[in-house]
């Protein structure tokens, strides 16, 4: 049954041009960044691996931002557009409803990733890092996006409002992304160091740095960054299960 929900959401993304618009925006941003990295006088002086690292950060950053915005409304819309009542009057199971929506959001990330492949190819031309670059952007991006989608869905099921979910999701994303911009000196502080080690966004960027700049390409060498990401996904999953359990059919309609 989750397949029906997944396909419905995918069709909606295409029919309403929402998904296509996101892909065009992603493509424009990737084009602009790649163009600047390759042609700008100062940026083109960067080492090629540094350029790849920057592009990888942009691909995953754009992916996280778009998916956060998209996932914020995918569940809440059912309540706001009053389609939830008919939907929950059918014998649909909550797990199918959530799984279908989750796969639809995750599919959007896969589309963004596919759009990014030509840019990855161009930026990594002449190095042996094309495949590690491609695989790690996909792996880290997928784990990070999955964790965020589950977190946002849990918030969405509790709030049932796109605006509140979107605001909360963007605040969380911003709060997690900002520390990754801190200088290394600032990160030397023990508290900042701990925060950095548990922060999923920081771990994504650190792992990319490890792969693309320090050439540490094996999974074992990146385990210290991937483990906290998997832990983040696990916590988000538990939160989603809690929010789903709290959700009851008797409550689909808000009290008038």
């Amino acid at each position, binding site marked *: *049954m989750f397949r*029906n929900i997944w396909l*419905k959401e995918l*069709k*909606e993304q295409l*029919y*309403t041009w929402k998904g296509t618009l996101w892909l065009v925006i992603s493509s424009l941003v990737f084009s602009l960044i790649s163009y600047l990295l390759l042609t700008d006088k100062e940026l083109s002086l960067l080492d090629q691996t540094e350029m790849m690292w920057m592009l990888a950060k942009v691909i995953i950053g754009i992916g996280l931002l778009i998916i956060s915005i998209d996932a914020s409304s995918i569940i809440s819309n059912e309540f706001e*557009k*009053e*389609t*939830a*009542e*008919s*939907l*929950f*009057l*059918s*014998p*649909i199971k909550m797990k199918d409803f959530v799984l279908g929506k989750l796969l639809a959001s995750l599919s959007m990330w896969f589309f963004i990733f596919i759009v990014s492949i030509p840019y990855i190819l161009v930026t990594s031309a002449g190095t042996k890092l094309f495949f590690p670059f491609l695989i790690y952007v996909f792996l880290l991006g997928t784990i990070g996006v999955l964790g965020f989608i589950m977190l946002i869905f849990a918030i969405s099921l509790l709030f049932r409002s796109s605006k509140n979910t979107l605001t909360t999701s963007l605040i969380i994303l911003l709060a997690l992304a900002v520390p990754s911009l801190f200088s290394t000196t600032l990160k030397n502080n023990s508290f900042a160091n701990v925060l950095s080690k548990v922060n999923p966004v920081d771990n994504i960027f650190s792992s990319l740095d490890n792969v693309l700049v320090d050439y540490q390409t094996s999974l074992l060498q990146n385990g210290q960054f991937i483990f906290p990401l998997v832990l983040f996904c696990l916590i988000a999953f538990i939160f989603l299960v809690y929010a789903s359990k709290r959700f*009851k*059919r*008797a*409550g*689909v*309609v808000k*009290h*008038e």
Partner: protein
Amino acid sequence: MKTIISVINLTKSYGSIKAVDGLNLEIAEGDFFGFLGPNGAGKTTTIRMLTGIIEPDDGKITIAGNIYPNLKPILNMIGVVPESRGFYEWMTAKEYLLFFAQLYNIPCPHKKIDELLGKVNLSERKNSAIATFSRGMKQRLGLARALVNDPKILFLDEPTLGLDPQGQEEIQNLLKQLNKNGVTIFLSSHQLNEVSNLCSRVAIINKGRLVAQGTISELQKKTNLAGSLKDIFLALTNNNHV
């Protein structure tokens, strides 16, 4: 006849307002049951409690032998035209019904959907986006969706609202046919003519309380009025907001 819907002392409050207050109903299998009341009387809240979409504060609901809150087994045997008219506007009528048919695991859904679209007179617009539909067309599509699983019990909340007289006539004929085929129908409506034409039994609620229940002739006796259902309704609710 066997009772299919039984409601005992059903109560629901929103804050200090009692939307439904100690409601008792008994509906036999195969009944065409009319549920009347002025605006805000608690009709929609009652339907939502019966279909498990709103949690009652108190009372006992039994539908086809299933007692609330274990109403999940009834989802496959009920069809509902709810008050909220949310549709996936970007879908075509056919895609919309197909989506719900798949949720119910209906075998050969395309054949079923074509048949339903014919019944509600939407065959010619089956490939049009719902966003282009008039209110009446959406009403008919909502009814087709409620029939997608061949329900044994049909809950209808103002099903002919927004329909032109021809559309109302078509829907009423369809409902008569369904009832003739054994479907129990719970109809909430403001159209008193419609209710008196269609329903074998009627319940009238006012401010969440049941004020009368029975056949129209029983209600006439109760109120000592030989007039129409409208006269009875006004006498019982003492309210002109019909």
